[in-house]
């Protein structure tokens, strides 16, 4: 049984060899080895051996050949194509400039928005294993408030009983504090936290150390935010270990946090540890859990819900009507910022598509003009793939140049926006936005992708060039297919522009509606600033009231001041207090069905200072003192909900703040928007500060004719006269407080409008380009027409009609897109329907006008074609 090596394996090996390698005698040697092998062992084993060796060798030679061919061919081809492409771009500067600028606009806008999306939505939170972190909110079932702060006892028991968590920690609401550094007191925002907060969060100090359970003993310690460290301490590292005074108490600076987003407390400047022994009443803390490794968030959430169910049984007076709401931290942080951002990213995507369509159109026109060149080169032996490769290189080069320029634009744009963003954009983590690795990679993909995209059609066309036909046509005709394609691009651009414009219109109208909402106050000529008595030794029970009463009285008496008052939480200023209550003329409700009301403590002429309309009864006056009967003023929403059709004045409510004693309603005032302009007012109860010193600070509001700066100076002077050691918080015009709540819609609608405007401009340029090109292609035909007696006006109308026909098709498609797209924006709109006819019709009309303008020039040019010139153009 003398069988040779397997013939198929030998053939595979043979085919992998080129002449030179064949000549080395590879096959002969392998045969010889096979014979030796077959003599030593069985022939079957030798054949197996031969197969493996032959295929291994074949793979080696094939890979080698691929590598060498590929390397040599590619480098040479790309180099040649690049040289040609650069030469061509330089020879046609108008073409290159238009194409590059268009791409730069599209790429720049896209990259800028993407960098914000990346920073806000995509990047993981800057903590250790952030996917394990869960925010544990309480859920108030009656009002369906799912992100309520939690009760300290609930927090403590969750922590004691939960087993699927590595740790549960908590941080308080944000509070104002007086921070004295080197004898100078200033207001700062502070949060109190559990000593292990930073450990559970997984965030280490940038300078010094965060406190932990180990070093929390002894003197109070504080950790500074990076921003506060830079602003107040000039980024001096030696501040670590030094002592400052917080609310009058000494505290040692233990460390500075890195520039990282902090959950539950944007803008907090320092943190100190929390004394849980203060009591376990109220709801004022944000618990944060880290689930144990390997435990699903859902399983941990189930556990904490079961624990809370038990706590509802154990403490029904406190927990009836409450549940726990575990939310993955990232989801909480990103929250509702994502909708507007995705919309903007979609909008710039559309803008980029329009830019690509424009450049594709330019390339198509150029390709048509180069048909003869391509035909000649094809006849001379250039392959279709060579020509296509060269055209693709040109388009990718244009995209690359445009992309580079766009990147610069994006960089300038984001850094200039970032400087103004904290207020302008009001997005979490937006300060991290910028051009980084991810963004660069995204830009690279974008550039190559778009370059290939708009270069593909001309390239494919070049690859299919039929030289004979093209040369015979002498460059007069443009292929029917290309014409259709170019028209299609224009129609698409018009449609997308209409959709973007109507999106911008919807957001713009929504924003206008938002800022024209009556907030229930008159913020003009009002200046506000907080005064915080915490740590000054003035105790509640009269001293704080006396101080604020005197301050507002003194302010009212100053020249240029009309009136002054103070309130614990400003409308739309962020933060607030609320509690359960019930009308005393009704049965006491069960705890889980207790209505809630916002609570505001006021002093002085607060209603006058804010110009809040009185509807019934009276506001607080000199009759109301700390020792007089307890009275409240309620808002319209509360009065109408509980006493519809009758006067609320004279009725009483029990407020479950300290005890359930009744408070008599003496007046009803107009609703004031509390949260933001787009959130309707709920029940609100104003309590006289003299009868309820529940907070050590007040927001002082001064109305007057002295101007914003004048009023601010008056406030500083009045406070200095009373206590020079007391800092005045940031002094703001009330208009700025109101405007801040509309910051995000303002920015979204502004950017949408900007992108839509750019898109419209690009679409108009595209239309203009297509029309003027078709005029130049039809010069001969037009000349003949004119020679045969057509009036110039008819010619102009003919050209314009062609353009407008394209626009009309685009408009119809665009209105359809707008109607569909509007639905996606519903959640971003305020009192504007997504099918708002004014926005959509306005967008269509605007585009029609712009398009008409773009057709005028080519039409006019056509009408002026002198017949002789046209006929001579042969």
């Amino acid at each position, binding site marked *: 049984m003398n069988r040779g090596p397997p013939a198929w394996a030998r053939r595979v090996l043979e085919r992998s060899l080129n002449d*030179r*390698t064949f*000549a*080395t*005698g*590879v096959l*002969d*040697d*392998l045969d*010889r*080895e096979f*014979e*030796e092998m077959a003599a030593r062992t069985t022939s079957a084993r030798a054949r197996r051996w031969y197969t493996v*060796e032959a295929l*291994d*060798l074949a793979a*080696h*030679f094939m890979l*080698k050949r691929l590598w060498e061919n590929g390397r040599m061919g590619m480098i040479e081809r790309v180099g040649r194509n690049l040289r040609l492409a650069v030469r061509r771009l330089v020879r046609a500067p108008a073409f290159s400039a238009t194409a590059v600028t268009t791409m730069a606009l599209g790429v720049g806008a896209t990259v800028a928005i993407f960098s914000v999306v990346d920073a806000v939505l995509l990047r993981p939170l800057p903590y250790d294993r952030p996917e394990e972190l869960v925010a544990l909110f309480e859920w108030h079932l009656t009002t369906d408030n799912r992100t309520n702060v939690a009760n300290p006892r609930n927090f403590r028991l969750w922590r004691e009983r939960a087993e699927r968590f590595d740790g549960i920690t908590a941080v308080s609401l944000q509070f104002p504090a007086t921070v004295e550094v080197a004898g100078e007191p200033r207001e700062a925002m502070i949060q109190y936290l559990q000593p292990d907060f930073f450990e559970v969060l997984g965030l280490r100090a940038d300078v010094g150390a965060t406190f932990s359970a180990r070093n929390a003993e002894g003197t109070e310690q504080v950790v500074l935010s990076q921003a506060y460290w830079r602003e107040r301490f000039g980024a001096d590292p030696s501040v670590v270990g030094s002592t400052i005074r917080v609310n009058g108490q000494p505290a040692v600076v233990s460390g500075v946090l890195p520039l990282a987003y902090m959950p539950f407390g944007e803008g907090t400047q320092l943190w100190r540890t929390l004394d849980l022994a203060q009591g376990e009443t109220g709801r004022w803390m944000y618990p944060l859990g880290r689930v144990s490794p390997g435990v699903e968030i859902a399983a941990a959430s189930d556990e904490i819900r079961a624990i809370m169910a038990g706590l509802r049984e154990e403490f029904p007076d406190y927990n009836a009507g409450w549940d726990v709401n575990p939310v993955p931290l990232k989801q909480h942080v990103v929250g509702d910022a994502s909708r507007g951002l995705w919309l903007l990213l979609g909008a710039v995507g559309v803008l980029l598509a329009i830019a690509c369509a424009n450049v594709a159109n330019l390339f198509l026109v150029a390709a048509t003009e180069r048909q003869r060149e391509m035909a000649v080169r094809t006849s001379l032996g250039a392959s279709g793939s060579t020509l296509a490769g060269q055209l693709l290189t040109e388009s990718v080069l244009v995209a690359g140049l445009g992309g580079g320029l766009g990147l610069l634009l994006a960089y300038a744009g984001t850094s200039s926006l970032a400087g103004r963003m904290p207020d302008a954009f009001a997005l979490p983590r937006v300060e991290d936005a910028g051009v980084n690795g991810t963004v660069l990679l995204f830009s690279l993909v974008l550039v190559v992708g778009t370059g290939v995209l708009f270069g593909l059609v001309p390239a494919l066309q070049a690859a299919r060039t039929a030289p004979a036909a093209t040369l015979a046509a002498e460059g007069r005709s443009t292929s029917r297919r290309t014409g259709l394609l170019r028209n299609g691009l224009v129609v698409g651009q018009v449609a997308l522009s209409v959709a973007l414009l109507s999106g911008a219109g919807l957001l713009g109208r929504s924003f206008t509606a938002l800022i024209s909402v009556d907030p229930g106050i008159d913020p003009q000529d009002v200046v506000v600033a907080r005064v915080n008595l915490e740590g000054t030794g003035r105790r509640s029970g009269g001293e704080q009231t006396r101080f604020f009463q005197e301050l507002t009285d003194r302010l009212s008496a100053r020249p240029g001041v009309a009136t002054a008052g103070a309130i614990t939480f400003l409308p739309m200023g962020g933060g607030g207090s609320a509690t359960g209550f019930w009308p005393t003329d009704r049965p006491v409700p069960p705890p889980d069905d207790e209505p809630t009301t916002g609570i505001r403590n006021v002093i002085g002429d607060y209603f006058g200072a804010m110009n809040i309309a009185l509807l019934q009864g009276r506001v607080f006056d000199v009759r109301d003192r700390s020792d007089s009967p307890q009275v409240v003023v309620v808002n319209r929403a509360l009065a109408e909900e509980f006493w519809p059709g009758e006067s609320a004045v004279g009725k009483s409510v029990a407020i479950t703040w300290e005890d359930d004693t009744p408070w008599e309603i003496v007046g009803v005032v107009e609703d004031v928007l509390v949260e933001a302009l787009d959130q309707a007012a709920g029940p609100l109860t104003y309590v006289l500060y003299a009868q309820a010193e529940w907070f050590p600070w007040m927001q002082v509001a001064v109305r007057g004719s002295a101007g914003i700066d004048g009023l601010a100076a008056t406030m500083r002077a009045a406070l200095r006269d009373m206590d020079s050691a007391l800092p005045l918080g940031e002094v703001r015009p009330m208009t700025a407080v109101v405007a801040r709540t509309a910051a995000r819609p303002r920015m979204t609608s502004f950017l949408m409008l900007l992108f839509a405007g750019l898109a419209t401009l690009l679409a108009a340029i595209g239309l203009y380009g297509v029309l003027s090109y078709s005029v130049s292609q039809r010069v001969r035909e037009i000349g003949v027409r004119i020679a045969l007696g057509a009036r110039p006006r008819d010619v102009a109308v003919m050209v314009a009609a062609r353009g407008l026909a394209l626009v009309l098709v685009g408009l119809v498609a665009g209105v359809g897109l707008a109607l569909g797209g509007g639905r996606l924006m519903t959640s971003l709109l305020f009192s504007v329907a997504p099918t708002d006819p004014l926005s959509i019709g306005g967008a269509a009309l605007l585009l029609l006008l712009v398009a008409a303008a773009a057709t005028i020039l080519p039409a006019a040019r056509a009408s002026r074609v002198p017949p002789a010139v046209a006929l001579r153009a042969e």
Partner: protein
Amino acid sequence: MVASAVYNVYSIVHNVDHGRGIVVGSKGFLGEFEQMVLLAILQHPDRAFALEVRREIEESAGRSVSRGAFYTTLERLERKGLVGWTEAPAPSPGRAGTLRRYSVTPEGLDGLRESRRAMDALARGLDHVIDRAAT
């Protein structure tokens, strides 16, 4: 130390180019494996068929040699004019026909010499280091 070693290599290349005008000078030094192939051919010129050369290398170096790399190297050495060949009867018993028997050309010998010289120059004064490392 590193800088002076680089300088040595540079000056050797320099000498090669201007002093002797050898092919190797412009193409760079022979690789380690190329040298091994050349030396194996020189060991037994009478039976320097590809298979035998490869086996010689495997035996002397004590490690197996990839067939692919070997034939590629052989082909490259031939292309560079460092090895030549003549047809000779196959050494295997009972096999008809002829096979290529390889030999090292004068250029190949020069290349070997230059590469060895460079190595020697680089190793100058390092005997104590190298020997200690080797033992």
